[in-house]
């Protein structure tokens, strides 16, 4: 009998990734509906000290697999570890962050287990009748939403888009158990040699963390216009971001791209400047708390989702808005 909601607690350099906490928060909700538990699976080298934070985030149990071979992510050692847990514990559900690690690991494990895997989910629910997991995710380039079921295989596996689920407030009074799990690794498991690990040099701005985003689309007209947007972002204490078009044109880095093939953001305020509002872009920002859109074209689709729409020239309005804000703050 398969039981419990498992979460792959992704870590890098021993630091548990934000998405893992989001997944545990969501797993708590799902486990509640199933009257089952949340089990976090922490895999790495010397990571045991992070187990407590997973319990504080909502895990009832943390399975810890520690071994030097797991220091940097390589598919086979991690797949072997997770597979061993699946075989030993028969989870009902197994969630992974849809990250560059999760999207490499989960398919490999799902094929080894012979179960279904649904990618990049943005919403999960327990079916009231069958108790199956209903996994909803964008498809067709973000143009449609599909709900997927994995009725006859266990665990039901899903990778979940970062930035969508809600982590719980960490509660240090929560209790839970920590289980050390041994996996017999051999040298042959390391079937790839890492010659070099190169980390991103500067602390790249994480637009998913920003509370206010001032975002530029094709309509801003030139790469220099991002300076105008940056001034407004600074006045708000936020960050700048971009639609795909400007990133493809080389006007700004890909780490600032919002959208279906970029990042999903949920800021308190999203200022869409000169962004037409193509579906692929909306997919990345439509869950923002408040959307302000400025565009010359009254018919632009962005106005269909904006809380406040201003028809006008971004390069005229934004500097005035920045000035007005600075005056207020003075």
């Amino acid at each position, binding site marked *: 009998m398969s039981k419990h909601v498992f979460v792959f607690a992704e870590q890098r350099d021993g630091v548990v990734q934000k998405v893992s906490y989001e997944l545990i928060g969501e797993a708590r909700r799902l486990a509640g509906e199933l009257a089952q538990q949340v089990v976090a699976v922490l895999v790495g080298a010397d990571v045991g000290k992070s187990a407590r934070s997973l319990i504080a985030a909502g895990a009832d149990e943390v399975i810890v697999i520690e071994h030097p071979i797991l220091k940097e992510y390589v598919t086979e050692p991690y797949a072997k570890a997770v597979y061993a847990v699946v075989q030993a514990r028969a989870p009902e559900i197994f969630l992974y962050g849809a990250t560059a690690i999760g999207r490499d690991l*989960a398919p490999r494990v799902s094929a080894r287990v*012979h179960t279904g*895997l649904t990618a990049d989910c943005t919403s999960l629910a327990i079916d009231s009748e069958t108790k199956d997991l209903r996994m909803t995710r964008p498809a067709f380039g973000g143009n449609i*939403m*599909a709900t997927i079921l994995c009725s006859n295989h266990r665990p039901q596996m899903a990778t979940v888009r970062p930035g969508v689920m809600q982590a719980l407030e960490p509660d240090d009074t929560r209790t839970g158990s920590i289980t050390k799990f041994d996996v017999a690794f051999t040298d042959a498991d390391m079937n790839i040699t890492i010659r070099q690990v190169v*980390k991103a040099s500067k602390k790249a701005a994480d637009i998913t963390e920003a509370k206010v985003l001032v975002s530029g689309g094709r309509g801003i007209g030139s790469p220099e216009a991002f300076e105008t947007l940056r001034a407004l972002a600074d006045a708000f204490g936020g960050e700048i971001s971009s639609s795909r078009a400007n990133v493809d044109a080389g006007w700004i880095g890909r780490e600032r791209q919002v959208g279906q093939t970029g990042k999903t953001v949920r800021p308190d305020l999203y200022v869409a400047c000169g962004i037409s509002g193509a579906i692929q872009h909306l997919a990345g920002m439509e869950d923002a708390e408040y959307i302000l859109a400025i565009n010359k074209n009254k018919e632009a689709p962005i106005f269909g989702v904006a809380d406040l729409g201003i028809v006008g020239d971004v390069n005229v309005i934004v500097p005035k808005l920045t000035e007005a804000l600075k005056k207020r703050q003075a």
Partner: protein
Amino acid sequence: MKIIVCIKQVPDTTEVKLDPVTGTLIREGVPSIINPDDKSGIEAALQLKERLPGSTVTILSMGLPQVDVAMREALAMGADDAILLSDRPLGGADTWATSSTVAAAIKKLDYDLIICGRQAIDGDTAQVGPQIAEHLGLPQVTYVEAIEAASEEQLVVRRQFEDRYHIVEVKLPCLITTLSELNAPRYMSVGGVFDAYREKTVQLWNLENIKDTVDMDSIGLKGSPTRVAKSGTKEVKGQGELFEVNPDEAVAVILEKLTAKHII
């Protein structure tokens, strides 16, 4: 080096529009293209072939007969041969069934390297490549953003993560998945198009061709652990207020509304 490139023909989802009247997707007239990540895979294979003379590039796809034109395009770019796996029972496959079937076909072939695109722009799962690697018991390197070195024994590639990259060495045979950032795929050449139809062939395979390697319980809709319960266009957040006023008035309105919402 014997290279197999797995490709998928997909609708160009970047060109799909919503019907303003009905709110549904307009699917007719959407051009079919080779999935962009896969095309980078083809280009990577062709560049490896140029680096290692004597290499061959075979294109493999599973789909409807009309996928022939995508195979011809790959041949026109310079691939040597192509196999299109097409049979009714294969339809409706999820990623498990697709990868099982494709792996069964690959087992019939000689290869040193399998290249898959990282993900398709219609399914967006990024699952089939790694699942094929598992079925074949091959080491996998996904998110390949650069190929630094290649020999008949191994590849050295740059594997992308959000916050870092790894330079990894992997021995052949192995499977890699390619990002469209990896390269700028070449166009077909004029002579290449004529060759694709006159000199080269697209072999049509069906279940008969893979009957001794395929697991009949893992094909098509019936062999798929996951299925689509429902799908539809997203409910879009409703429209708020729209103002068409002069810039100074606009700024005043913005400040008023943001203050009311306690954003400033």
